[in-house]
């Protein structure tokens, strides 16, 4: 979706020059399809087939090792809306957890990296060094950052609380075991960890904005803010769309941070949808039920993505 918009924009910006001379018209032949083939094969094998198969699984009581996989129709779906079913509370609780995380992490992950990208886009000494500094945490695996922060944020023994205590602030905040602290920790760690990625995308986008537009803005007497509003933001729109959708999807699929830092505590408050789906399917071997949950989550994300997409479009 995103790539298409980018291409569409550049197409309108630079219309194709009319053919200069008589060009022999030939059908596209097999060439484009040959180029598509490797991707198509991968897409069909690893995306399309599993997706359709998952839909099939979700209509069954499915344990891949049990001989009987009885067809149950939409039972796995209706259970998710039946408050008496064993999955109802847990599922919606986990959806809520994913929702909370997304609502609080996405704005930060869209705005903060943009600010950093704007700073890093200016020329100053040591720019490359700072670019590396902001991107560095993103290179670390979730296991590394999870373990690291679990120790740093430990309510009784962690460095964060003892530093706070040293400067006279309360030193008994339950960063990983209490609310809302656990959410603050999870969002904070995630922003620290992944902002470099979005910043790099923004940087690339910023460098694509033609310098002439800034010069024109200056000639017109626009200040810094006017430049940002009328040149930078419109120029970044396709990139912004990509960043927003990508971040929403990544945040709603959050798993590792909760799994490692809070283990879903307190109670199951920070157990995200993906975490619960994994438990249901991979630990409880109820793949049918887990698939139904995944489809519901997918549907929700599809609707959200389409809404965002539309919001960006209507601004045109």
């Amino acid at each position, binding site marked *: 979706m995103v790539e298409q918009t980018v291409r569409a924009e550049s197409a309108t910006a630079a219309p194709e020059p009319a053919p200069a001379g008589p060009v022999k018209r030939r059908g596209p032949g097999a060439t484009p399809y040959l180029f598509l083939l490797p991707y198509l094969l991968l897409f069909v094998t690893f995306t399309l087939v599993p997706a359709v198969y998952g839909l099939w699984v979700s209509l069954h009581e499915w344990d891949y090792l049990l001989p009987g996989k009885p067809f149950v129709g939409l039972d796995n779906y209706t259970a998710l809306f039946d408050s008496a079913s064993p999955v109802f509370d847990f599922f919606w609780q986990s959806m809520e957890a994913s929702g909370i995380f997304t609502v609080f992490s996405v704005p930060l992950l869209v705005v903060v990296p943009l600010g950093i990208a704007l700073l890093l886009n200016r020329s100053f000494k040591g720019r490359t060094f700072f670019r590396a500094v902001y991107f560095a945490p993103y290179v670390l695996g979730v296991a590394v950052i999870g373990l690291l922060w679990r120790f740093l944020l430990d309510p009784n023994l962690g460095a964060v609380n003892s530093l706070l205590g040293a400067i006279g602030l309360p030193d008994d905040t339950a960063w*990983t075991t209490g609310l809302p602290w656990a959410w603050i920790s999870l969002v904070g760690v995630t922003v620290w960890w992944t902002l470099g990625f979005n910043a790099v995308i923004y940087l690339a986008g910023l460098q694509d904005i033609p310098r002439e537009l800034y010069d024109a803005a200056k000639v017109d007497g626009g200040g810094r803010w006017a430049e940002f509003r009328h040149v930078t933001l419109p120029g970044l729109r396709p990139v912004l769309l990509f960043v927003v959708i990508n971040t929403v999807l990544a945040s709603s699929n959050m798993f590792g941070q909760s799994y490692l830092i809070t283990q879903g505590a307190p*109670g199951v408050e920070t157990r995200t949808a993906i975490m619960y789906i994994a438990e249901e399917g991979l630990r409880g071997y109820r793949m049918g039920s887990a698939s139904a949950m995944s489809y519901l989550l997918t549907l929700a994300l599809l609707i959200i993505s389409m809404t965002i997409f539309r919001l960006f479009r209507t601004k045109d």
Partner: protein
Amino acid sequence: MKPHLTRRGLLGLGVGAGGAVLLGACSDDGPNPVVGGGGENAQPAATNYTGPNVALAFWNGFTGGDGPVMKALVDRFNSENPNIKVTMNVYEWADYYQKVPAAVSTGNGPDLGIMHVEQVATNAARGVVLPLDDVAASLQLNEADFSPPVWRAGVYNNKRYAIPLDVHPQGMFYNKAVLEQAGLDPEKPPTTGEEYLAALDKLKSKGIQGHWATPFPFTGTHQFESLTWQFGGQLFDEQATKPLFAEEPGVKALTWLTDLVKNGYSPKNVAQDADLIALQNGKAAFNWNGIWTINTLRAVKNLEWGVSALPTIGSQPAAWAGSHNFVQFKQRSQDQNKLQAGKVFINFISKQSIEWAKGGQVPARKEIRDGAEFKALPEQAAIGSQIDNLHFPPSVPGIPDAMATIDTAVNEAILLRKEPAKALADAAGKANQILEQNRKKYGG
């Protein structure tokens, strides 16, 4: 499982059959049809293997200090049995329990593996592991060679699926320097509820929070389970038709743990592993933890520590324990040579389990546990003294799913978000639904 037979009754039958085979084996009249026949793993087993060369894949989750010990045992086995080549693969336990069934279902499963005792019934019901009655029989193993709760835990639906390698119970680890600092005798740790609370009081008066109550499964849930049994309770009835952990003994157990926090013997909001770190740092005096902690604490320089059986807080001694068990995995096509070689391997490792004990476990075999060599391992022996007071969850498929609800209750109560009785009752409601779901699924 047939509803009119109790689990113990079924186990009795199993043990009886094992005994019959034992007698049969003595009179040397071949495999006993009662036990040896009928299963997919029906080849009579022996303690040596003379067939053509075979290669066995052995998977387990010994990623910690136990990994190298097992690897050394495997190497020794390979050098003493030139016609069998065992290769060992190690995965994180959580990955292992996902990988192995998937591998078995595609016909790429390993030949041999290790399984925690609470996983055995689930994997037996799902056809991942093979019955091992004949292994037990031909290796002449029976209940008397092990400890009754350990030995019985490997039976599902009247068939044995697992041969115990070890048990890893909880023990009480204590920091001697901290006890001394509070004027307590570091060589005489408390053994009763009154002594324990008196010690905590003394520690508190010196500004030390003696027992950090942890809200996480490792090992908060384990402590809750130990205490529930100590107060005379059970987690589930024997056939796991309903949860019992929310009844009086369970409520007493969780209230006792929660009160540690409420009365200031423990800090609030203890995070994962913080209880053990606090013991190492001299911030806590006691930590009820698994036997594997021996290795962790040995690695800490200048730490004076000891370990004993859990104090008896309730009316009777009891302790949580896990147990590693040998299993053989189902293959697409049975290779009798491989099965035979696998049995030889299981027997070999089982007999060498004193080496395994040195890695920080209590051997499941009685003869080894009673031997002088094991008694010379003071820490392991102290924890091992609890062997007859250990409890395992019912051998019912899907039981780990129902047990997970306990984790949530313990977490909510110790974090002071719910009163213990309420947290347990909520969890029991969920557990009930899960048990019912499992019965439907596995045909209870």
